[in-house]
């Protein structure tokens, strides 16, 4: 237990950090966005079109042939990254032993950053038509 005790108990003094509040809010807000976006995305890719028909060429020519659609998908990507990775942060806070938690979280955020770069790159640079 830390040397810094809060009042009479053994709990550490609150740091005043609001990180966990923001995380909590971000997860709720993105979840509402995803409820629409992710479910719509899944329905479109599985029920409107046939999975087997969606080749790279098709994506380029049909789905991503409009800037607004690309922006929307990028928005979904952001929401998923924020939501999914903050969700995983929560899971790791629960189960990863404190010794290696910090390192693991850095690893997690690194993956998030990588996905952010890859996803943004393809959405932004894939030529239209």
């Amino acid at each position, binding site marked *: 237990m830390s040397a810094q005790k809060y009042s009479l108990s053994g709990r550490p003094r609150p740091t005043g950090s609001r990180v966990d509040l923001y995380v909590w809010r971000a997860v709720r807000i993105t979840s509402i966005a995803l409820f629409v976006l992710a479910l719509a995305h899944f329905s479109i890719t*599985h029920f409107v079109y046939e999975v*087997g028909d969606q080749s*790279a060429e098709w994506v*380029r020519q049909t789905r991503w042939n409009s800037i607004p659609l690309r922006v929307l998908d990028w928005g979904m990507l952001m929401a998923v990254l924020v939501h999914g990775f903050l*969700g995983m942060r929560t899971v790791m806070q629960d189960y990863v032993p404190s010794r290696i938690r910090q390192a693991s979280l850095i690893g997690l955020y690194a993956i998030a950053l990588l996905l952010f770069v890859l996803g943004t790159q393809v959405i932004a640079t894939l030529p239209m038509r």
Partner: protein
Amino acid sequence: MTQGSSPLASPQKLRNYPSYRGGEGMVAWAFHRISGIGVWAFIVLHVVDIWLIGVNPALYDQLGNIYSSAPGRVMETLLGAALFYHALNGMRIVVMDFWPALTIYHRGLWRAVWVTFFIFGLPGAYIILKPIWEMAA
């Protein structure tokens, strides 16, 4: 300050809580967590494969073939189920977060999650899986 019963207390922790008979809420949470992790794992994969559209379209198309194969479709169905359950139960949680008074109906809300899940999920699963029979035929 308190002088309590600690010093001799054994550092032993009881490990029998995996057998705790939690109620609906605990099951709902366990499913939510498992489905969340599952969907997360898929998303990691999915962003990478989308990225391939730009760098290596041929490889992407090969992957697309895997997705539309029979095992691929089963996987897609499971993914859809996980996402759908997670989304519905997620809304259940968000609703309670915004209106704490609704917690007294948490069981009812959970039942509603399952009803919705099956009403939309079964036809959905049918659509995704149908080509398997068609292929076999």
